[in-house]
């Protein structure tokens, strides 16, 4: 129950949510809601582990995972952008499809034994800082540090660069963006692909770094859905997404650790003496997602913030839109 250890592990497992959330954030900023995150993460986790088992090279696994998830995201892109299908149903069907495919192709992988994982390292000087050092810079997987880089980069890209402005324009007012010569369809395909890449990276981070192995659908255990919820909480801002992701990571770790000691805050620990209460602890991440959504929605109502205006709507050139 050492808070530093809980936060350190929280940062590690929050990295999974971070990748998935930022990926979904990019797709939604372009106006495409992709509910297939859970499925794409499963594809990523399965193919990363599978390739790492077959070749012994985890980096190759990460690469294949990202490409596989990116490719399968294009099914959704094709249906909702070109065929103008319903984004909710298409995203759900992508999750069913991808989960099914990864269970079929991952058959037997759970007994595959050990693989070489993504290495961990400690950053020399920064790790000496009291409290912050051990939490953020000590014996973390490379993926965690990649996450640190992704946060400012995606924020900068979204708010400070020309392509980032184009991305926002496509999500807010595609017809206006089109008149400026931005190819709305191509942009949307591209950012759905980016979402797929990052969801695949999130999956690979689970199966090759944070909780290694392939446990069929239990590998992700709903984290893809939590990521979709976090995007709303984050109000489509990468910095808020990072805070949410790490907080949820810490919560997951706290739930595991709280059942350990027999004394908690000077009192007998009910979770130690009655392990069945653990089922209520298991509910916490999901319950917190709902609470966080309520808070986020209330704030959005108060500040009159909201989703990208064109989120969920197909763009049909020449038709009167919003």
């Amino acid at each position: 129950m050492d808070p530093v250890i809980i936060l350190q592990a929280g940062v590690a497992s929050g990295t999974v949510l971070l990748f998935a959330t930022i990926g979904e954030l990019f797709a939604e900023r372009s106006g495409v809601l992709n509910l297939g995150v859970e499925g794409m993460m499963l594809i990523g986790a399965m193919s990363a582990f599978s390739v790492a088992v077959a070749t012994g090279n985890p980096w190759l696994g990460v690469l294949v995972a990202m490409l596989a998830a990116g490719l399968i995201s294009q099914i959704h892109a094709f249906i909702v952008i070109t065929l103008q299908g319903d984004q909710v149903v298409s995203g759900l069907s992508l999750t069913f499809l991808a989960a099914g495919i990864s269970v079929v192709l991952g058959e037997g992988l759970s007994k595959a034994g050990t693989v070489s994982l993504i290495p961990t390292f400690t950053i020399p000087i920064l790790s000496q800082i009291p409290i912050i050092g051990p939490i953020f810079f000590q014996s973390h997987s490379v993926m965690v540090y990649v996450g640190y880089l992704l946060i400012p980069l995606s924020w900068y890209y979204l708010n400070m660069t020309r392509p980032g402005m184009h991305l926002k324009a496509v999500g807010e007012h595609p017809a206006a963006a089109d008149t400026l010569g931005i190819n709305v369809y191509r942009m949307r395909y591209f950012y759905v692909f980016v979402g797929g890449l990052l969801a695949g990276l999130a999956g690979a981070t689970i199966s090759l770094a944070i909780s290694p192995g392939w446990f069929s659908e239990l590998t992700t255990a709903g984290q893809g859905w939590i990521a979709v919820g976090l995007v709303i909480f984050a109000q489509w801002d990468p910095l808020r997404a990072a805070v949410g992701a790490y907080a949820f990571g810490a919560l997951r770790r706290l739930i595991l650790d709280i059942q350990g000691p027999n004394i908690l805050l000077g009192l007998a620990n009910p979770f130690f003496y009655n392990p069945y209460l653990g089922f209520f602890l298991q509910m916490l991440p999901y319950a917190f997602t709902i609470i966080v959504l309520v808070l986020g929605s209330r704030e959005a109502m108060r500040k009159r913030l909201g989703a990208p205006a064109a989120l969920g709507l197909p763009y049909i050139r020449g038709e009167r839109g919003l």
Partner: protein
Amino acid sequence: MTELASAPPAGKRRLPYKVMIEPRLKEPPRWYPPLVSFGAILVALILGGVVISLAGGDPIRSYLHIARASFGNSGVISDTLVKATPLILVGLACAVAFRMRLWNIGAEGQFFMGALGASTVVLVPLLPAEASPWLFIPTMMAAGMLFGAFWGFIPGFLKARFNVNEIITTLMLNYIAVAFVNFFIFAVWSEGGFQMSPMFPRTAWLPRLTDYARQVPFFGGLTTHLGMLLGLIAAVVVWFILYRSRWGYEIRLIGDNPKAARYAGLNISRNIVLVMMFSGALAGLAGMSEITGVVHRLQGAISPGYGFTGIIIAWLAKLNPFAVVLVSVLFGALILAGREIQPSGVPKMIQGIILVCLIASDFFLRYQVRLVRQGVEV
């Protein structure tokens, strides 16, 4: 452009035909949407076969096995109907909510809560074991529907009051419901340390066809239970509500055009809560029917993802209550036969492929695709 049959000029090769895609201006004929859905399923089965053979299986043998193991004789047809029963109810639950464009993805959780609600009648117990089935069955139905409706009320209320996205909340409530039910079967009602409750008394079982084998010998061994009848009645009720009642008219109006509905003075918030509760009650009834008709005790593995299959069924049935019944029987067959197919993810994957093809095929309802003979530019 003129219609000339002469060959295209040399050097500028063109195909003799080109594909034209135009928005449909009028409704397609009645036979057309089912045909498109049928074509989508056919394409899905072919694609599924490709993946099965990639994974090292034999697709034709898998499909033949599914057909034989689900419609081969009266016994397995009855088993198929048993699997179809919860699917009809969750399919209807999804169809009602989707008709108002409320994305209730939480039928799975509402199913589990319905099972829990029905179990409380026996296990708390609310009724003594020797009570008459005439008392037991309605009480358990009411309890199951009440628990399911409560589980639908939460996301409905949050959406109506705080505009919280119901897709995420209903999904999260699925995980919470499963953990909640697990708490009861592990800790409260565990029988001898096993992860299941004690068996329900016979008076709390839904009657099955085989129970009447003495009167009608043909029924011997057939496990189809009263839940099937409940499903059929529910389909009629849902159809009546949606297409013949004022409330159904409001639901359809809000679904088709929420702005017009608001200008017409309809109370959208109230309808959101009511429809989510109605949807949850139907899914809860499915959970009640499954444990009182098939499992006869509360345990963990009571659903191979019925709640999620219900989403596909509702969409495949184009939200039509009677089509839900038909499609549920087909999916019941897939789930029944799919249990023995290796690798184990195949039924789920085929469901996913069917839904993907189906949603893609909607394109052909909104656009017409024509082959046009290419003329030669003069």
